[in-house]
């Protein structure tokens, strides 16, 4: 299932009432909440931990209701101690627990960067497989709402160079739930990125337990002329840009990475080889980011099938300003992706 599959069926007067009631459009945040609830019921060794996540349910309400259901031992509020939050998860995971941490804003991960990079990501390797780190770090990332320099960043680039960490980045509520459940099941440590601009997006999310595989991209829209590789908020933007391009007779394929590390190179390279024209879109600054990695890999491995250079759409090489018009300049949008598609289509 992908975002493209989840367009709401039109409610007409002829739709029987019961069928209409079964249509369950839920928000991204609610889908995540569902996943946490189902996972806590499944795994006795799971607990959730973070700042203001218990009674308050977290800054974005993702952990709402868990305290009442599972109690304060398993739904654990902490002081502002990001390193201790992740260290606690690491230590508990070393003895077989399955913790899920919430770092309120991804920007604050700088406070526990050492724990993630030098401890969590390396635990399995450096001690020769004697420990596992089955923990999930959920965090709210991304801009577009006037959050300013410390509440808006896309941090995947900070971790792309870190072997051992899995980076999961859903673009829609259905994947968000399935990927979170798969992340909690995983015996590898997962950095689970929740783009704030997607929190209110809605879709028909199956109420039952299901997982969406890690490390597998999805074709969010099929096309033949240009491939756009994207993740998180760039996916709905790419889908909008693809719809506009279709009006101009350009058929765009959108690859939703879903897992950023290790990413699904087979799907990306197959699509790039098929269309021969590629746009990679990500919200973070260009240098050393996801777009740089994808562009390099596609250029190396699909060189003879490419009809022109890979076109990159990224954030500008600046911090993120508070002013919304300035932020609009700095962050990439649908128009930037549309322009990149038009450029690639010329090749």
């Amino acid at each position, binding site marked *: 299932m992908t975002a493209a599959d989840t367009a709401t069926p039109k409610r007409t007067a002829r739709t029987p009432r019961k069928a209409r009631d079964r249509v369950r459009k839920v928000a991204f945040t609610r889908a995540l909440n569902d996943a946490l609830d189902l996972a806590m019921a499944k795994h006795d060794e799971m607990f959730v931990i973070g700042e203001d996540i218990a009674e308050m349910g977290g800054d974005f309400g993702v952990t709402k209701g868990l305290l009442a259901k599972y109690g304060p031992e398993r739904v654990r509020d902490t002081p502002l101690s990001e390193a201790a939050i992740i260290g606690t998860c690491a230590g508990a995971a070393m003895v077989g627990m399955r913790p899920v941490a919430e770092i309120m804003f991804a920007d604050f991960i700088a406070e526990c960067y050492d724990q993630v990079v030098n*401890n969590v990501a390396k635990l399995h390797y450096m001690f020769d497989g004697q420990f596992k780190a089955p923990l999930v770090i959920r965090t709210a990332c991304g801009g577009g709402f006037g959050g300013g320099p410390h509440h808006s960043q896309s941090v995947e680039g900070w971790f792309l160079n870190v072997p051992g960490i899995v980076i999961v980045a859903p673009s829609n509520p259905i994947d968000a739930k399935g990927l979170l459940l798969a992340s909690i099941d995983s015996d590898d440590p997962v950095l689970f990125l929740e783009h704030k601009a997607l929190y209110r997006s809605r879709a028909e999310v199956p109420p039952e337990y299901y997982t969406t595989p890690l490390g597998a991209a999805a074709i969010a829209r099929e096309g033949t002329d240009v491939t756009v590789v994207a993740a998180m908020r760039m996916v709905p933007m790419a889908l909008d840009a693809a719809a506009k391009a279709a009006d101009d007779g350009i058929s765009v394929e959108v690859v939703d990475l879903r897992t950023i590390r290790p990413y699904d190179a087979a799907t990306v390279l197959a699509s790039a080889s098929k269309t021969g024209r590629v746009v990679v879109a990500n919200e973070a600054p260009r240098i050393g980011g996801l777009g740089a990695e994808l562009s390099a890999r596609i250029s190396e491995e699909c060189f003879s099938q490419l009809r022109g250079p890979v076109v990159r759409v990224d954030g500008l090489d600046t911090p993120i300003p508070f002013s919304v018009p300035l932020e609009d300049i700095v962050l990439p949008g649908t128009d930037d992706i549309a322009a990149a598609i038009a450029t690639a289509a010329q090749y």
Partner: protein
Amino acid sequence: METSTLLGLYRDMWLIRAFEQGLEREFEKGNVPGMLHTGLGQEATQAALAWHLKATDTFFPDHRCHGINALAQQRHGGDGERVMAELFGKATGVCSGKGGSLHSADPAVGNFGDNAVEGSYMATVLGVALAAKMRGQPNVACAIIGDGTVGRGEFHESLNMAAIWDLPVLYACINNGYAISMPVGEGHASADIVDMVQGYGFSSQQVDGNDIVEAWTAVSSAVEHIRSGAGPYFLEFKTWRWQGIFAGEFRPEAEVKYWKEERDPIMLAGETLAGRGVAPNDLEAVEQEMTGLIEEWIAFALESPEPDPAKATADVYVGWEVDSR
């Protein structure tokens, strides 16, 4: 303390000393890669801790803790020689040579591994302790850190969280007077770390880390306190390390002379034992036995094979393979 216990601790301290002296020699010969930090002069603190920790407890050893790693192997049915082999980077090491001196772990004997980013496991220890508490296990989770590491933010985050959650953590701070070169009183608000700990509101105690009887007794009561569910305990061991800055010496000559000649923990324990009637020959025999044992471990390490090349890319992820060259 019974004489037999003291003799056992004397033996343990000699094991540490022989280990570190043998290691120093092999390091100088170029047989040990990387960096060398030794626990020489601090044997009493490590012997006291090792004595009271069970295999079901957890300890996070610091960069001078080869000795406690080896003692844990001996006490809990492991192989001390595998601790030595790890330092040589060999396939027979506790981490197949992937960890080395600064990342040796063996959970079977309670050793949860050093972290060369000093003090980072001050946070990790919380999780191990929390899990024990949630599961109702009477386990102790111990973090061993130096005085310099008190400067880390995680030190304070850890003490605060252990306090609010009443976690079964034993903090063992080895105050040997210096970080690398920074004297403890210049680097911290107090040269007595326990003064800084008091605000967190749990039990703490400063002990003479070169007096094995005092150190052992303090660890004994701290561990008992924690096992009874009474929450965390902070022990500060005042001691002194024989190693200067890596191989060089930077401390005043009189200070070096005092600690090495008058405050050597093994010498002090030997004097106590002699005072209780243990024959000089018996003490001498302990030293010889331990030195002989360590030579066997070194020979084992030297003869062991290098790690399997497949280990270079093994265990990056549980769920994915990583390409080799």
